[in-house]
């Protein structure tokens, strides 16, 4: 079911002694594709674009994650969106690139709690130990492409398309309750 972005209210959705899952506050999201000399883009955005897949950098509240050799995802406060679009449009003529506003496409789950990493193994085939704290990756979670941001050992953000959010939440909710029940 596809739901508008406004229907995902930030806050904790489900919690147990093992883990907690909630929606993050809304933010501006951009998909950036660029090749060649990145310096003008970096100057326009006010941050350096990481060149290794999975690496993150941030400046103020802007945060960028490298997804592929020429692809990045950028998160920023919603109020910052127009400034980012304008700054990149300013260098477009000399340095062609693609900056797409995907704010309305994705929501972020926030996953934490003592067994947060274990909860993710429910739908993620990838070895989560290979994602270091402070990094992120695009991967597959129970059939949906997601972007995982690892903020601490057991603290993750999971970006997914709004159309998959309900499905993924049901799986995460089951996991949260099941891991919580094991503790008793």
């Amino acid at each position, binding site marked *: 079911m596809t739901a508008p972005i406004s229907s995902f209210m930030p806050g904790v959705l489900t919690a147990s002694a093992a883990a907690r899952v909630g929606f993050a506050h809304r933010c501006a999201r951009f998909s950036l594709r660029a090749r060649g000399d990145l310096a003008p883009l970096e100057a326009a955005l006010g941050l350096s674009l990481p060149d290794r*897949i*999975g690496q993150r950098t941030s400046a103020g509240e802007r945060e960028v994650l490298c*997804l*592929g*050799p020429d*692809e990045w995802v950028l998160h920023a406060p919603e109020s910052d969106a127009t400034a980012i679009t304008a700054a990149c449009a300013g260098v477009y003529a000399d340095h062609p690139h693609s900056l797409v506003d995907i704010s309305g496409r994705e929501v972020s789950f926030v996953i934490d709690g003592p067994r947060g990493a274990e909860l993710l193994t429910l739908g993620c*085939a*990838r070895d989560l130990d*290979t994602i270091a704290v402070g990094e992120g*990756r*695009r*991967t*597959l979670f129970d059939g949906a*492409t997601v972007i995982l941001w690892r903020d601490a050992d057991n603290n993750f953000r999971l970006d997914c398309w709004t159309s998959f959010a309900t499905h993924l939440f049901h799986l995460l909710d089951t996991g949260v309750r099941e891991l919580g029940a094991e503790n008793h």
Partner: protein
Amino acid sequence: MLLIHCPYCNETLPEVEFAYASEAHIARPTRPSETTDEDWAEFLFMRSNVKGPLYERWRHVHGCGRFFNAVRDTVTDKFLTTYKAGEPRPDLSSLTEGLK
């Protein structure tokens, strides 16, 4: 589950992140208007269908999104190597040497 090494991410990752994309190193005719029907059919439909090591394309679709090439043994399903798109095909004898 197979583990596949993505040459762009430089990581060995589960098969579910990848998609198969047919045989590799098939060059599109450079002058389509001068190509005969037989050559088009050869280009479009004919594949080597080997029993053993096969050069093939894969895409890291749920990761970096890149196409890359791999050599996979179609009998054992073992990946002999993976390499970036555009790189020359690796010598088969050097890949299979260690397996004998």
